[in-house]
């Protein structure tokens, strides 16, 4: 069974997105809404990680080898300027897709295992991940015309 591995993958993605939101928050603190919302959304992802802990333990023994192959770097370092902001939000958006898909995969497994707790956790976290995606999309749409067309 590979559920443990996938939980590990998700845990890693949530960890990365937590960090990435925090980095973007700090780096773009001159954009007050970015600073605060990214801080909040980083906290959401940290909370998701916390929710994963019991399942990481529960399904640890069933982990197959070579988990490292499932991990990859998703976000490197934030960029500057109005275009940089969009590219950062763009990357964060992609990252939320990665996380969302992982939650979906795990939810499927939870259904098959009839693990009610894990199912509830998946439902909660994937709904919140969608809200992260939605916010990022809205903010990108708002910023794009000005950054791409008008700014020097």
């Amino acid at each position: 069974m590979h559920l443990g591995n996938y939980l590990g993958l998700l845990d890693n993605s949530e960890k990365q997105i937590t960090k990435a939101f925090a980095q973007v928050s700090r780096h773009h603190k001159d954009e007050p809404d970015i600073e605060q919302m990214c801080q909040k959304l980083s906290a959401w992802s940290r909370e998701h990680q916390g929710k994963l802990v019991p399942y990481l333990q529960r399904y640890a023994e069933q982990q197959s080898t070579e988990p490292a192959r499932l991990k990859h770097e998703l976000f490197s370092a934030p960029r500057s300027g109005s275009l940089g902001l969009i590219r950062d939000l763009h990357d964060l958006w992609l990252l939320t897709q990665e996380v969302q898909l992982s939650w979906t995969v795990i939810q499927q497994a939870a259904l098959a295992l009839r693990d009610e707790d894990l199912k509830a956790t998946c439902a909660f976290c994937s709904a919140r991940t969608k809200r992260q995606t939605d916010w990022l999309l809205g903010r990108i749409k708002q910023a794009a015309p000005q950054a791409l067309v008008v700014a020097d």
Partner: protein
Amino acid sequence: MSETRNAIQDIWGPRTPYHGAWPVREDERVTETPDHWVQSACVLCSNGCGLDIGVKDGRIVGVRGRVNDRVNHGRLGPKGLHGWEANHSSDRLTKPLIRRNGQLEEASWDEAMRLIVERSQELIRQHTASAIGFYTSGQLFIEEYYTLGVLGKAGLGTPHMDGNTRLCTATAGAALKISFGTDGQPGSYNDLNTTEAVLLVGHNMASQQTVLWTRILDRLAGPNPPQLVVIDPRRTYTAEKATVHLAPRAGTNLAVLNGLINLLIEADQIDHAFIKAHTVGFAELRKTVEKWTPERVEHLTGVPAEKLLAAARILGTSKTLVSTALQGVYQSMQATAAAVQINNIHLIRGLIGTPGNAILQMNGQPTSQNTRECGADGDLPGFRNWDNPDHIEELARLWNVHPDKIPHWAPPTHAMQIWRYCETGSIKLLWIQATNPAVSMPELARIRRILQQKDLLVVVQDAFLTETAKLADVVLPTAIWGEKTGTFTNTDRTVHISYQAINPPGEARADFDIFLDYARRMDFRDKDGQPLIKWSTPEEAFEAWKACSKGRPCDYSGLSYEKLTGGSGIQWPCNEQHPDGTEHLYTDHQFNTHADYCETYGYDLVTGAEKQPEEYKANDPKGNAIILAADYEPPHEEPDAEYPLWFTTGRIVYHFHTRTKTGRARALQEAAPEGFVQLSAEDAARHGIAAGDLVTVESRRGKVTEPARIGDIEPGLVFMPFHYGYWDHDEHDKRAANELTLTEWDPVSKQPHFKYAAVRIRKA
């Protein structure tokens, strides 16, 4: 000089106790006997009291309340009775000014307009119209806003149009849209005449809309007085009259409101049939509020559990209820989420659309309602939905332009973002009208810096050389109220006409004429090559606006200048179906939430993310009201060791906004010549401060010094009025409250958070 009452000493005037029909009381103040009277309404707050302007030899010599007006029944407050004196102030701007070699110098209209037009055209060539931004006001007339909206949206095609109303009324609009599908106050001032209870949240009505407060005072003096629940951290004039006064800690409105809703649900004081038939979302609300027990609310907000219970008992047992909210909600943490909970109280109790029941998501400024209606702020004209292609198509047809000319690719840029684009340099022309951001915006040092940025051309259109005008590159002198004709709408949807009574001074022009001149010089055309703006008088503009509003909730099509003349103001919607206007919206409990009619597809109350159209259509509420819940979140800046006190701002009864007019009316200025720092006796003692001592208040963003006023405020909280700036004060001696406030805003309404910050104090 004659006056029927001294409104400076007796703010609200003598009582006329009643229940049912509010008696008239004619308030008048003239300095000489007028030779004629001209119909108008007051523009010094959102109440819109009907008045006549007394004129003698081409000058205003006084005002009297219109006894037949539904809003005030003849009454006027201190600002209304005195504010007109500013029209004849000796420091009115009478000629355009252009900055040359660092100095503002007199210029001709042609020079000034040519400069603006040439710069506009150059910017459009190089960067598109998105390099041009407008920051308008809550003080202009419908005809002006609509003209501005059309020239900006269909002429230039810039998404950057907003204004000072973002600071005062954006949350009111957002909350109404979210709950009911579109903007529009469900009830009426008349509901106060019979209601059993009034809930005032963050709304010091006694100081803000003094005449509306008189309506309540008269009820309190009459038979069957209503019970009052007031939520305000200060013991204001309003709070003094409360049956129950809740004084929560800064930034905790949502916890208190969730606590109240929880008690209503627990006591089963809710209308199950109404909830089932006319709303969606109740289950989520119940789930969200259930943990907000009175004990938990007390722990977080400092509101004693028994007081919360007493307040809930009033709200839960009254058969009718009028609720109001203002800046204490709109400019604080979780503004929209909290404002929506006030709507929810009415929805779960089924108290809406019937006499005695009203929700008044108040406006601050007199005509801010019209910026929302006419598309001069971040909304589309007629409460249309920027995300609905059919609505854009409608406007395009009306204006005879291609739909893509109208910016609708993203939500219209909100004011805070407009300033940010100026700061980062992508907006290069900022055109400010009739407002004073150099005193009214948060974090003033930043605003001054932006206004002085080298590559930003700042145009200021005003009647006085305000703090903002002083920093402008081009200043256009304007005619003000009494010197031009137009219409405007108060908080309870009452439309008034205000006629020109006198000529403007010198070369000052109406904002309306300035916009028309700009549109003509820019040669804005429609699809057929005809001039885009087809009107040249205010009345023609009003007719155009009627056509734009027809079929929308704010339907003006049944109104006309003629109909508005002679009698009372009239409430929209006014059309064939409702020729005399409309007291209550939603009398059939059908709300404006249909997917093809609504003004918004909804928001995430926490992140502010817009919901996608498909998502909304899949669960089309089809006329049901939307109950949205949100949980409490702590403010972003809280007191700490370095800045241990909460800071909040507000208004005083004698002044409006940044005192541009009220500071120039002698009696108002003398009644409140300077600002102050209000603090509790405990905090004063701890810092060795006595009443009248100069106190320095410091935040992470700046510091100011003003005399101390002690008492009537919770320990741990410091208050300052926001009216006082620098036009009559040394600008090096900082005193404006907004030197201290935060640059951050509500995620949904984008209204800035003036109502909390962390500060420290010391004796100066």
